Protein backbone atom coordinates (compact mmCIF):
# COMPACT_ATOMS: atom_id res chain seq x y z
CA UNK A 1 0.00 0.00 0.00
CA UNK A 2 1.13 3.52 -0.73
CA UNK A 3 1.94 5.58 2.29
CA UNK A 4 -0.34 8.55 2.67
CA UNK A 5 1.06 11.95 1.72
CA UNK A 6 -0.80 14.88 3.26
CA UNK A 7 -0.49 18.31 1.71
CA UNK A 8 -2.02 21.29 3.47
CA UNK A 9 -3.43 24.29 1.67
CA UNK A 10 -4.62 27.31 3.61
CA UNK A 11 -7.65 29.21 2.34
CA UNK A 12 -8.65 32.04 4.70
CA UNK A 13 -9.89 30.46 7.91
CA UNK A 14 -10.18 27.10 6.13
CA UNK A 15 -7.61 24.36 5.60
CA UNK A 16 -7.72 21.96 2.71
CA UNK A 17 -5.87 18.70 3.29
CA UNK A 18 -5.04 16.88 0.07
CA UNK A 19 -4.65 13.17 0.76
CA UNK A 20 -2.69 10.87 -1.51
CA UNK A 21 -2.22 7.17 -0.69
CA UNK A 22 -3.67 4.81 1.90
CA UNK A 23 -4.80 5.69 5.40
CA UNK A 24 -4.24 2.43 7.24
CA UNK A 25 -3.31 1.67 10.82
CA UNK A 26 0.30 2.72 10.13
CA UNK A 27 -0.21 5.96 8.21
CA UNK A 28 -3.26 7.32 9.95
CA UNK A 29 -1.28 8.65 12.95
CA UNK A 30 0.18 11.13 10.47
CA UNK A 31 -3.29 12.42 9.59
CA UNK A 32 -4.16 12.44 13.27
CA UNK A 33 -1.02 14.54 13.85
CA UNK A 34 -2.04 17.02 11.14
CA UNK A 35 -5.55 17.31 12.57
CA UNK A 36 -4.27 17.75 16.13
CA UNK A 37 -1.93 20.48 14.85
CA UNK A 38 -4.87 22.32 13.29
CA UNK A 39 -6.94 22.00 16.44
CA UNK A 40 -4.12 23.37 18.60
CA UNK A 41 -4.07 26.45 16.36
CA UNK A 42 -7.86 26.77 16.65
CA UNK A 43 -8.28 26.04 12.96
CA UNK A 44 -11.54 24.14 12.90
CA UNK A 45 -12.72 24.43 9.31
CA UNK A 46 -11.20 21.55 7.41
CA UNK A 47 -11.83 20.17 3.94
CA UNK A 48 -10.44 16.72 3.19
CA UNK A 49 -9.68 16.31 -0.49
CA UNK A 50 -9.85 12.53 -0.96
CA UNK A 51 -9.12 12.47 -4.71
CA UNK A 52 -5.93 10.43 -4.22
CA UNK A 53 -7.14 8.35 -1.28
CA UNK A 54 -7.00 4.60 -2.06
CA UNK A 55 -8.02 3.13 1.27
CA UNK A 56 -9.16 4.23 4.69
CA UNK A 57 -9.18 2.07 7.82
CA UNK A 58 -11.93 2.20 10.40
CA UNK A 59 -9.51 3.71 12.92
CA UNK A 60 -8.74 6.56 10.51
CA UNK A 61 -12.46 7.15 9.93
CA UNK A 62 -12.90 7.24 13.68
CA UNK A 63 -10.26 9.98 13.89
CA UNK A 64 -12.12 11.99 11.22
CA UNK A 65 -15.45 11.67 13.02
CA UNK A 66 -13.79 12.62 16.30
CA UNK A 67 -12.25 15.73 14.72
CA UNK A 68 -15.56 16.75 13.10
CA UNK A 69 -17.39 16.35 16.39
CA UNK A 70 -14.93 18.58 18.26
CA UNK A 71 -14.72 21.09 15.39
CA UNK A 72 -18.50 21.53 15.41
CA UNK A 73 -18.35 22.54 19.06
CA UNK A 74 -16.23 25.53 17.94
CA UNK A 75 -18.34 26.46 14.91
CA UNK A 76 -16.10 24.50 12.58
CA UNK A 77 -16.53 21.24 10.68
CA UNK A 78 -14.76 18.61 8.64
CA UNK A 79 -16.05 18.00 5.13
CA UNK A 80 -15.12 15.35 2.60
CA UNK A 81 -14.58 16.02 -1.09
CA UNK A 82 -14.31 13.74 -4.10
CA UNK A 83 -14.56 10.27 -2.60
CA UNK A 84 -13.74 7.36 -4.90
CA UNK A 85 -16.58 4.80 -5.08
CA UNK A 86 -14.59 2.45 -2.86
CA UNK A 87 -14.07 5.03 -0.12
CA UNK A 88 -17.67 6.20 -0.43
CA UNK A 89 -18.86 2.62 0.10
CA UNK A 90 -16.92 2.37 3.38
CA UNK A 91 -18.26 5.75 4.56
CA UNK A 92 -21.79 4.81 3.54
CA UNK A 93 -21.61 1.35 5.14
CA UNK A 94 -20.86 2.92 8.52
CA UNK A 95 -23.60 5.50 8.05
CA UNK A 96 -21.04 8.31 8.19
CA UNK A 97 -22.45 9.90 5.02
CA UNK A 98 -25.37 10.97 7.21
CA UNK A 99 -23.00 12.54 9.74
CA UNK A 100 -20.30 14.11 7.57
CA UNK A 101 -20.96 16.49 4.67
CA UNK A 102 -19.67 15.11 1.38
CA UNK A 103 -19.08 17.18 -1.78
CA UNK A 104 -18.02 16.52 -5.36
CA UNK A 105 -15.85 19.64 -5.72
CA UNK A 106 -13.57 21.55 -3.37
CA UNK A 107 -15.30 24.84 -4.29
CA UNK A 108 -18.67 23.46 -3.21
CA UNK A 109 -17.21 22.53 0.16
CA UNK A 110 -15.52 25.93 0.51
CA UNK A 111 -18.79 27.76 -0.22
CA UNK A 112 -20.70 25.59 2.23
CA UNK A 113 -18.77 26.95 5.23
Amino acid at each position, binding site marked *: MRECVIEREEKGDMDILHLDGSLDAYSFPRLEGSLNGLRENSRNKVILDCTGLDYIS*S*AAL*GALIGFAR*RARESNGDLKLVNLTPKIYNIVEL*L*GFHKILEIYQEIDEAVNSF
Partner: protein
Amino acid sequence: MGCCSFVFFSAFLIIALVIALYITVRRYRLLRAERDELEQEKEVIFGFIHDAGEVFANAEGLDMEGMLTRVLFYAMRTTRAGAGAVYLLESDKQTLRNGAVSGIFPPLIGKVDAGLERAMSKSQHIQKLVRSQVIRKGEGLIGEVADIGMPILIEDPERDPRVPHYDLDYLKIHSILLVPMRFHQQVLGVIVVINRVDGQPFIQTDLNLLQAVADQASVSIHFAQLRESLNEKQRIDHDLDIARNIQMSLLPKTIPKIEGIELAAFNYPALEVGGDYYDFVEVDEKRIGIALADVSGKGISGAIMMSMCRSVLRSQAPGVTSPAKVLNGVNHLMRKDIADDMFVSMLYMILNIETHELAIARAGHERPILVPGDKSGLHVIESPGLAIGIGDEEAFGMITKDTVITLHPGDVVVTYTDGVTEAMNENEQEWGIDNFTEAIRVSADEGAHSVLNNVQQRLMRFVGETPQYDDTTLLALRVVR
Protein backbone atom coordinates in the same frame (compact mmCIF):
# COMPACT_ATOMS: atom_id res chain seq x y z
CA MET B 1 108.10 15.96 39.88
CA GLY B 2 107.10 12.29 39.86
CA CYS B 3 105.35 12.71 43.16
CA CYS B 4 103.40 15.69 41.79
CA SER B 5 102.20 13.83 38.74
CA PHE B 6 101.11 10.92 40.98
CA VAL B 7 99.00 13.23 43.09
CA PHE B 8 97.37 14.67 39.94
CA PHE B 9 96.76 11.21 38.61
CA SER B 10 95.22 10.06 41.89
CA ALA B 11 92.95 13.13 42.04
CA PHE B 12 91.86 12.53 38.45
CA LEU B 13 91.11 8.91 39.22
CA ILE B 14 89.01 9.84 42.25
CA ILE B 15 87.07 12.46 40.30
CA ALA B 16 86.48 9.98 37.49
CA LEU B 17 85.32 7.38 40.01
CA VAL B 18 82.96 9.86 41.69
CA ILE B 19 81.51 10.85 38.30
CA ALA B 20 81.13 7.24 37.29
CA LEU B 21 79.46 6.46 40.61
CA TYR B 22 77.17 9.47 40.23
CA ILE B 23 76.14 8.42 36.73
CA THR B 24 75.54 4.85 37.86
CA VAL B 25 73.40 5.93 40.81
CA ARG B 26 71.49 8.34 38.63
CA ARG B 27 70.91 5.71 35.97
CA TYR B 28 69.89 3.27 38.63
CA ARG B 29 67.38 5.76 40.02
CA LEU B 30 66.02 6.51 36.56
CA LEU B 31 65.70 2.84 35.82
CA ARG B 32 63.98 2.29 39.10
CA ALA B 33 61.52 5.12 38.41
CA GLU B 34 60.90 3.69 34.97
CA ARG B 35 60.46 0.24 36.42
CA ASP B 36 58.08 1.63 39.04
CA GLU B 37 56.07 3.35 36.36
CA LEU B 38 55.97 0.17 34.30
CA GLU B 39 55.03 -1.77 37.40
CA GLN B 40 52.24 0.69 38.01
CA GLU B 41 51.05 0.48 34.42
CA LYS B 42 51.22 -3.29 34.62
CA GLU B 43 49.09 -3.13 37.73
CA VAL B 44 46.56 -0.94 35.97
CA ILE B 45 46.45 -3.25 32.98
CA PHE B 46 46.09 -6.35 35.15
CA GLY B 47 43.39 -4.48 37.06
CA PHE B 48 41.74 -3.62 33.80
CA ILE B 49 41.78 -7.18 32.52
CA HIS B 50 40.29 -8.29 35.80
CA ASP B 51 37.72 -5.48 35.66
CA ALA B 52 36.76 -6.24 32.08
CA GLY B 53 36.00 -9.76 33.20
CA GLU B 54 33.95 -8.36 36.06
CA VAL B 55 31.88 -6.20 33.72
CA PHE B 56 30.92 -9.31 31.80
CA ALA B 57 30.48 -11.67 34.71
CA ASN B 58 26.83 -11.85 35.84
CA ALA B 59 26.03 -9.03 33.42
CA GLU B 60 22.81 -10.88 32.48
CA GLY B 61 21.46 -10.33 35.94
CA LEU B 62 21.97 -6.57 35.83
CA ASP B 63 19.51 -3.99 34.61
CA MET B 64 20.79 -1.13 32.46
CA GLU B 65 21.35 1.21 35.38
CA GLY B 66 23.31 -1.38 37.34
CA MET B 67 25.35 -2.16 34.27
CA LEU B 68 26.25 1.51 33.62
CA THR B 69 27.15 2.08 37.27
CA ARG B 70 29.52 -0.87 37.04
CA VAL B 71 31.03 0.34 33.75
CA LEU B 72 31.67 3.77 35.26
CA PHE B 73 33.24 2.30 38.39
CA TYR B 74 35.80 0.37 36.31
CA ALA B 75 36.33 3.28 33.93
CA MET B 76 37.30 5.51 36.85
CA ARG B 77 39.43 2.86 38.54
CA THR B 78 41.33 2.16 35.33
CA THR B 79 42.11 5.83 34.67
CA ARG B 80 42.44 6.77 38.36
CA ALA B 81 39.84 9.49 37.72
CA GLY B 82 38.25 11.58 40.47
CA ALA B 83 34.86 11.78 38.77
CA GLY B 84 33.08 10.51 35.72
CA ALA B 85 29.82 9.92 33.91
CA VAL B 86 28.32 7.60 31.32
CA TYR B 87 25.91 8.86 28.66
CA LEU B 88 23.69 6.71 26.47
CA LEU B 89 22.28 7.61 23.09
CA GLU B 90 18.46 7.51 23.18
CA SER B 91 16.50 5.36 20.76
CA ASP B 92 15.91 8.45 18.57
CA LYS B 93 19.71 8.41 17.98
CA GLN B 94 19.70 12.20 18.38
CA THR B 95 19.87 12.82 22.11
CA LEU B 96 22.05 11.60 24.95
CA ARG B 97 20.94 11.01 28.48
CA ASN B 98 23.02 10.41 31.57
CA GLY B 99 23.02 6.80 32.72
CA ALA B 100 25.48 6.97 35.61
CA VAL B 101 27.51 9.63 37.40
CA SER B 102 30.09 9.44 40.17
CA GLY B 103 32.25 11.90 42.12
CA ILE B 104 32.02 15.67 41.70
CA PHE B 105 31.14 15.79 38.05
CA PRO B 106 30.09 19.31 36.99
CA PRO B 107 27.76 19.78 33.98
CA LEU B 108 29.72 20.06 30.74
CA ILE B 109 27.11 22.06 28.84
CA GLY B 110 24.91 25.04 29.55
CA LYS B 111 25.70 28.24 31.36
CA VAL B 112 25.96 27.93 35.11
CA ASP B 113 25.34 31.22 36.92
CA ALA B 114 26.82 32.13 40.26
CA GLY B 115 23.60 31.32 42.13
CA LEU B 116 23.42 27.93 40.58
CA GLU B 117 27.08 27.38 41.24
CA ARG B 118 26.50 28.12 44.92
CA ALA B 119 23.48 25.82 44.91
CA MET B 120 25.68 23.20 43.35
CA SER B 121 27.94 23.23 46.38
CA LYS B 122 26.19 20.08 47.43
CA SER B 123 27.25 17.15 45.31
CA GLN B 124 23.76 15.68 45.06
CA HIS B 125 22.58 18.92 43.47
CA ILE B 126 25.21 18.59 40.77
CA GLN B 127 24.33 14.95 40.24
CA LYS B 128 20.66 15.87 39.91
CA LEU B 129 21.50 18.52 37.32
CA VAL B 130 23.80 16.23 35.36
CA ARG B 131 21.30 13.39 35.45
CA SER B 132 18.43 15.51 34.15
CA GLN B 133 20.36 17.17 31.31
CA VAL B 134 19.51 16.02 27.80
CA ILE B 135 22.37 16.53 25.36
CA ARG B 136 21.84 16.73 21.61
CA LYS B 137 24.18 14.83 19.32
CA GLY B 138 26.93 17.28 18.34
CA GLU B 139 26.33 19.55 21.35
CA GLY B 140 29.30 20.19 23.63
CA LEU B 141 32.14 17.74 24.14
CA ILE B 142 29.86 14.76 24.92
CA GLY B 143 27.70 15.43 21.88
CA GLU B 144 30.81 15.83 19.75
CA VAL B 145 32.23 12.45 20.76
CA ALA B 146 28.84 10.82 20.13
CA ASP B 147 28.70 12.50 16.75
CA ILE B 148 32.21 11.78 15.44
CA GLY B 149 32.64 8.48 17.30
CA MET B 150 36.25 9.35 18.26
CA PRO B 151 37.83 9.92 21.70
CA ILE B 152 38.88 13.36 22.93
CA LEU B 153 41.69 13.96 25.44
CA ILE B 154 42.20 17.47 26.81
CA GLU B 155 45.31 17.76 28.96
CA ASP B 156 45.01 21.49 29.53
CA PRO B 157 41.32 22.48 29.76
CA GLU B 158 42.21 26.03 30.90
CA ARG B 159 42.95 26.98 27.34
CA ASP B 160 40.15 24.95 25.69
CA PRO B 161 36.90 26.86 25.12
CA ARG B 162 34.92 23.62 24.88
CA VAL B 163 35.48 22.93 28.59
CA PRO B 164 33.32 24.95 31.02
CA HIS B 165 35.18 27.04 33.60
CA TYR B 166 33.89 27.12 37.15
CA ASP B 167 34.99 29.57 39.81
CA LEU B 168 34.47 27.20 42.73
CA ASP B 169 37.67 25.27 43.18
CA TYR B 170 36.23 21.85 43.64
CA LEU B 171 34.16 22.17 40.43
CA LYS B 172 37.23 22.96 38.33
CA ILE B 173 38.14 20.59 35.55
CA HIS B 174 41.91 20.05 35.41
CA SER B 175 41.97 17.30 32.85
CA ILE B 176 39.26 15.54 30.87
CA LEU B 177 39.01 12.42 28.77
CA LEU B 178 36.02 11.27 26.68
CA VAL B 179 35.66 8.03 24.71
CA PRO B 180 32.79 6.70 22.61
CA MET B 181 31.12 3.35 23.24
CA ARG B 182 30.64 1.72 19.87
CA PHE B 183 29.09 -1.49 18.64
CA HIS B 184 29.38 -2.35 14.95
CA GLN B 185 30.20 1.24 13.92
CA GLN B 186 27.18 2.49 15.88
CA VAL B 187 27.81 4.87 18.74
CA LEU B 188 25.88 3.66 21.80
CA GLY B 189 27.10 6.30 24.23
CA VAL B 190 30.02 8.17 25.76
CA ILE B 191 32.19 7.63 28.83
CA VAL B 192 33.67 10.78 30.40
CA VAL B 193 36.24 10.91 33.17
CA ILE B 194 37.79 14.03 34.74
CA ASN B 195 40.62 14.95 37.12
CA ARG B 196 43.09 12.19 37.90
CA VAL B 197 43.31 11.62 41.64
CA ASP B 198 47.13 12.04 41.61
CA GLY B 199 46.73 15.53 40.16
CA GLN B 200 48.45 14.56 36.90
CA PRO B 201 46.74 15.17 33.56
CA PHE B 202 45.39 12.18 31.66
CA ILE B 203 47.81 10.78 29.09
CA GLN B 204 47.55 8.69 25.94
CA THR B 205 47.85 5.46 28.00
CA ASP B 206 44.73 6.46 29.95
CA LEU B 207 42.92 7.09 26.70
CA ASN B 208 43.89 3.68 25.33
CA LEU B 209 42.83 1.94 28.51
CA LEU B 210 39.54 3.83 28.77
CA GLN B 211 38.76 3.08 25.13
CA ALA B 212 39.37 -0.59 25.88
CA VAL B 213 36.94 -0.38 28.83
CA ALA B 214 34.41 1.34 26.56
CA ASP B 215 34.80 -1.32 23.86
CA GLN B 216 34.18 -4.09 26.38
CA ALA B 217 31.26 -2.24 27.92
CA SER B 218 29.66 -1.65 24.50
CA VAL B 219 29.08 -5.35 23.99
CA SER B 220 27.35 -5.71 27.35
CA ILE B 221 25.32 -2.54 26.81
CA HIS B 222 24.25 -3.61 23.35
CA PHE B 223 22.88 -6.87 24.71
CA ALA B 224 21.32 -5.18 27.72
CA GLN B 225 19.48 -2.83 25.33
CA LEU B 226 18.39 -5.80 23.27
CA ARG B 227 17.14 -7.48 26.43
CA GLU B 228 15.23 -4.33 27.45
CA SER B 229 13.42 -4.08 24.11
CA LEU B 230 12.72 -7.80 24.31
CA ASN B 231 11.19 -7.30 27.76
CA GLU B 232 9.06 -4.51 26.31
CA LYS B 233 7.95 -6.86 23.53
CA GLN B 234 7.13 -9.53 26.09
CA ARG B 235 5.04 -7.01 28.01
CA ILE B 236 3.10 -6.13 24.87
CA ASP B 237 2.68 -9.81 24.06
CA HIS B 238 1.40 -10.33 27.58
CA ASP B 239 -1.14 -7.51 27.10
CA LEU B 240 -2.24 -9.07 23.84
CA ASP B 241 -2.64 -12.41 25.59
CA ILE B 242 -4.90 -10.80 28.17
CA ALA B 243 -6.93 -9.11 25.45
CA ARG B 244 -7.18 -12.39 23.53
CA ASN B 245 -8.34 -14.18 26.68
CA ILE B 246 -11.02 -11.56 27.29
CA GLN B 247 -12.10 -11.85 23.68
CA MET B 248 -12.20 -15.65 23.73
CA SER B 249 -14.20 -15.66 26.96
CA LEU B 250 -16.82 -13.43 25.33
CA LEU B 251 -17.50 -15.73 22.42
CA PRO B 252 -20.27 -18.32 22.86
CA LYS B 253 -18.93 -21.70 23.92
CA THR B 254 -21.60 -23.53 21.97
CA ILE B 255 -23.91 -22.69 19.14
CA PRO B 256 -27.60 -22.96 20.06
CA LYS B 257 -29.47 -25.93 18.63
CA ILE B 258 -32.77 -24.88 17.09
CA GLU B 259 -35.14 -27.23 15.36
CA GLY B 260 -35.45 -26.43 11.67
CA ILE B 261 -32.53 -23.99 11.71
CA GLU B 262 -28.89 -24.79 10.97
CA LEU B 263 -26.47 -22.35 12.60
CA ALA B 264 -22.70 -22.17 12.13
CA ALA B 265 -20.08 -19.62 13.17
CA PHE B 266 -16.36 -19.17 13.36
CA ASN B 267 -14.02 -16.52 14.65
CA TYR B 268 -10.37 -16.46 13.70
CA PRO B 269 -8.42 -14.02 15.87
CA ALA B 270 -5.73 -12.04 14.07
CA LEU B 271 -2.08 -11.52 14.95
CA GLU B 272 -2.90 -8.27 16.73
CA VAL B 273 -6.10 -8.75 18.63
CA GLY B 274 -8.96 -7.28 16.70
CA GLY B 275 -12.35 -6.48 18.10
CA ASP B 276 -14.69 -9.01 16.52
CA TYR B 277 -17.37 -10.76 18.49
CA TYR B 278 -20.61 -12.64 17.96
CA ASP B 279 -23.35 -13.70 20.30
CA PHE B 280 -26.71 -15.42 20.57
CA VAL B 281 -29.41 -14.07 22.91
CA GLU B 282 -32.80 -15.42 23.86
CA VAL B 283 -35.32 -12.69 23.09
CA ASP B 284 -38.41 -14.68 24.07
CA GLU B 285 -39.46 -18.30 23.79
CA LYS B 286 -39.91 -18.12 20.02
CA ARG B 287 -37.25 -15.59 19.06
CA ILE B 288 -33.48 -15.78 19.04
CA GLY B 289 -31.22 -12.74 18.69
CA ILE B 290 -28.00 -13.04 16.68
CA ALA B 291 -25.35 -10.34 17.01
CA LEU B 292 -22.09 -9.72 15.21
CA ALA B 293 -19.82 -6.77 16.04
CA ASP B 294 -16.48 -5.22 15.18
CA VAL B 295 -14.88 -2.69 17.53
CA SER B 296 -12.62 -0.12 15.80
CA GLY B 297 -10.06 -0.22 18.64
CA LYS B 298 -7.59 -3.07 19.00
CA GLY B 299 -5.84 -4.67 21.97
CA ILE B 300 -7.04 -4.33 25.52
CA SER B 301 -9.13 -1.19 24.91
CA GLY B 302 -10.90 -2.98 22.05
CA ALA B 303 -11.46 -6.07 24.19
CA ILE B 304 -12.90 -4.02 27.05
CA MET B 305 -15.19 -2.20 24.60
CA MET B 306 -16.35 -5.57 23.29
CA SER B 307 -17.12 -6.90 26.73
CA MET B 308 -19.12 -3.72 27.43
CA CYS B 309 -20.95 -4.15 24.15
CA ARG B 310 -21.85 -7.72 25.00
CA SER B 311 -23.19 -6.88 28.47
CA VAL B 312 -25.17 -3.91 27.19
CA LEU B 313 -26.69 -5.94 24.34
CA ARG B 314 -27.61 -8.74 26.70
CA SER B 315 -29.32 -6.26 29.02
CA GLN B 316 -31.26 -4.62 26.18
CA ALA B 317 -32.25 -7.63 24.10
CA PRO B 318 -34.71 -9.70 26.20
CA GLY B 319 -38.32 -9.12 25.24
CA VAL B 320 -37.60 -6.51 22.52
CA THR B 321 -38.60 -7.65 19.03
CA SER B 322 -37.23 -4.67 17.05
CA PRO B 323 -33.47 -4.99 16.52
CA ALA B 324 -33.17 -1.28 15.68
CA LYS B 325 -34.69 -0.45 19.06
CA VAL B 326 -32.18 -2.73 20.81
CA LEU B 327 -29.26 -1.17 18.92
CA ASN B 328 -30.54 2.29 19.79
CA GLY B 329 -30.47 1.30 23.44
CA VAL B 330 -26.94 -0.08 23.05
CA ASN B 331 -25.83 3.14 21.33
CA HIS B 332 -27.43 5.27 24.03
CA LEU B 333 -25.73 3.37 26.85
CA MET B 334 -22.33 3.10 25.19
CA ARG B 335 -21.96 6.49 23.54
CA LYS B 336 -20.80 8.30 26.66
CA ASP B 337 -18.13 5.70 27.35
CA ILE B 338 -16.75 5.34 23.83
CA ALA B 339 -13.78 7.57 23.01
CA ASP B 340 -14.44 10.33 20.47
CA ASP B 341 -12.56 8.56 17.73
CA MET B 342 -13.81 5.02 18.35
CA PHE B 343 -16.94 3.25 17.24
CA VAL B 344 -18.49 -0.20 17.03
CA SER B 345 -20.16 -1.65 13.99
CA MET B 346 -22.85 -4.12 14.91
CA LEU B 347 -25.37 -6.28 13.15
CA TYR B 348 -28.32 -7.52 15.15
CA MET B 349 -30.90 -9.89 13.76
CA ILE B 350 -33.92 -11.41 15.44
CA LEU B 351 -35.18 -14.69 14.02
CA ASN B 352 -38.66 -15.95 14.77
CA ILE B 353 -38.11 -19.69 14.87
CA GLU B 354 -41.79 -20.43 14.18
CA THR B 355 -42.55 -18.06 11.32
CA HIS B 356 -38.93 -17.73 10.08
CA GLU B 357 -39.37 -14.00 10.00
CA LEU B 358 -35.97 -12.31 10.23
CA ALA B 359 -35.73 -8.72 11.46
CA ILE B 360 -32.42 -7.04 10.75
CA ALA B 361 -30.85 -3.81 11.98
CA ARG B 362 -27.38 -2.76 11.00
CA ALA B 363 -25.33 -0.26 13.03
CA GLY B 364 -22.75 0.46 10.37
CA HIS B 365 -21.94 -3.22 9.94
CA GLU B 366 -21.39 -5.22 6.75
CA ARG B 367 -24.70 -6.09 5.15
CA PRO B 368 -25.81 -9.70 5.44
CA ILE B 369 -25.94 -11.80 2.29
CA LEU B 370 -29.02 -13.84 1.39
CA VAL B 371 -28.82 -16.91 -0.81
CA PRO B 372 -32.41 -17.96 -1.56
CA GLY B 373 -33.12 -21.67 -1.57
CA ASP B 374 -34.96 -21.34 -4.90
CA LYS B 375 -31.64 -20.48 -6.63
CA SER B 376 -32.96 -17.08 -7.73
CA GLY B 377 -29.52 -15.62 -7.03
CA LEU B 378 -27.57 -14.19 -4.15
CA HIS B 379 -28.15 -10.64 -2.93
CA VAL B 380 -27.27 -8.34 -0.04
CA ILE B 381 -29.96 -7.36 2.45
CA GLU B 382 -30.17 -3.59 2.58
CA SER B 383 -30.93 -1.80 5.84
CA PRO B 384 -29.94 1.74 6.75
CA GLY B 385 -27.90 2.32 9.91
CA LEU B 386 -25.21 4.20 11.78
CA ALA B 387 -22.24 2.77 13.70
CA ILE B 388 -22.54 2.74 17.51
CA GLY B 389 -20.89 5.59 19.38
CA ILE B 390 -21.19 8.23 16.65
CA GLY B 391 -24.57 9.91 16.98
CA ASP B 392 -26.99 10.73 19.80
CA GLU B 393 -30.27 8.87 20.31
CA GLU B 394 -32.11 11.06 17.84
CA ALA B 395 -29.56 10.82 15.01
CA PHE B 396 -29.07 7.10 15.56
CA GLY B 397 -32.82 6.49 15.63
CA MET B 398 -33.36 8.54 12.45
CA ILE B 399 -30.73 6.61 10.50
CA THR B 400 -31.00 3.07 11.85
CA LYS B 401 -34.13 1.17 10.75
CA ASP B 402 -35.35 -2.40 10.80
CA THR B 403 -35.59 -4.48 7.67
CA VAL B 404 -37.86 -7.51 7.93
CA ILE B 405 -37.80 -10.46 5.55
CA THR B 406 -39.32 -13.90 5.70
CA LEU B 407 -37.00 -16.82 5.11
CA HIS B 408 -38.08 -19.86 3.15
CA PRO B 409 -36.84 -23.42 3.34
CA GLY B 410 -33.35 -23.68 1.91
CA ASP B 411 -32.60 -19.95 2.35
CA VAL B 412 -29.12 -19.17 3.68
CA VAL B 413 -28.13 -15.92 5.39
CA VAL B 414 -24.40 -15.16 5.77
CA THR B 415 -23.03 -12.43 8.01
CA TYR B 416 -19.38 -11.49 8.41
CA THR B 417 -16.89 -8.85 9.52
CA ASP B 418 -14.62 -6.89 7.17
CA GLY B 419 -11.65 -9.06 8.19
CA VAL B 420 -13.04 -11.64 5.75
CA THR B 421 -13.29 -9.44 2.65
CA GLU B 422 -10.21 -7.35 3.50
CA ALA B 423 -7.93 -10.34 4.14
CA MET B 424 -4.65 -9.78 2.29
CA ASN B 425 -2.28 -12.08 0.47
CA GLU B 426 1.48 -11.62 0.24
CA ASN B 427 1.07 -9.26 -2.76
CA GLU B 428 -1.14 -7.00 -0.62
CA GLN B 429 -4.19 -7.89 -2.65
CA GLU B 430 -7.55 -8.04 -0.90
CA TRP B 431 -9.62 -11.19 -1.08
CA GLY B 432 -12.60 -8.95 -1.85
CA ILE B 433 -16.36 -9.23 -1.88
CA ASP B 434 -16.49 -11.01 -5.27
CA ASN B 435 -14.34 -13.97 -4.18
CA PHE B 436 -16.33 -14.10 -0.97
CA THR B 437 -19.75 -14.17 -2.60
CA GLU B 438 -18.54 -16.74 -5.13
CA ALA B 439 -17.42 -19.01 -2.25
CA ILE B 440 -20.87 -18.63 -0.68
CA ARG B 441 -22.75 -19.14 -3.94
CA VAL B 442 -21.18 -22.49 -4.77
CA SER B 443 -21.67 -23.94 -1.28
CA ALA B 444 -24.95 -22.49 0.02
CA ASP B 445 -27.00 -25.39 -1.28
CA GLU B 446 -25.22 -27.77 1.06
CA GLY B 447 -25.96 -25.75 4.15
CA ALA B 448 -24.50 -23.29 6.67
CA HIS B 449 -21.55 -25.46 7.71
CA SER B 450 -20.64 -26.06 4.11
CA VAL B 451 -20.61 -22.29 3.46
CA LEU B 452 -18.31 -21.77 6.42
CA ASN B 453 -15.94 -24.55 5.40
CA ASN B 454 -15.78 -23.43 1.81
CA VAL B 455 -15.17 -19.77 2.67
CA GLN B 456 -12.52 -20.78 5.20
CA GLN B 457 -10.69 -23.04 2.76
CA ARG B 458 -10.69 -20.56 -0.11
CA LEU B 459 -9.68 -17.73 2.18
CA MET B 460 -6.77 -19.74 3.64
CA ARG B 461 -5.62 -20.71 0.16
CA PHE B 462 -5.69 -17.05 -0.87
CA VAL B 463 -3.80 -15.53 2.08
CA GLY B 464 -1.31 -18.42 2.42
CA GLU B 465 1.25 -17.69 5.11
CA THR B 466 0.58 -13.92 5.19
CA PRO B 467 -0.15 -12.84 8.77
CA GLN B 468 -3.55 -11.16 9.09
CA TYR B 469 -4.03 -7.96 11.05
CA ASP B 470 -7.78 -8.12 11.48
CA ASP B 471 -10.03 -10.78 12.98
CA THR B 472 -12.21 -12.75 10.65
CA THR B 473 -15.66 -13.71 11.84
CA LEU B 474 -18.30 -15.50 9.86
CA LEU B 475 -21.79 -16.64 10.82
CA ALA B 476 -24.28 -18.47 8.65
CA LEU B 477 -27.80 -19.75 9.15
CA ARG B 478 -30.07 -21.86 6.98
CA VAL B 479 -33.71 -22.77 7.16
CA VAL B 480 -33.71 -26.51 6.84
CA ARG B 481 -35.76 -27.80 3.93
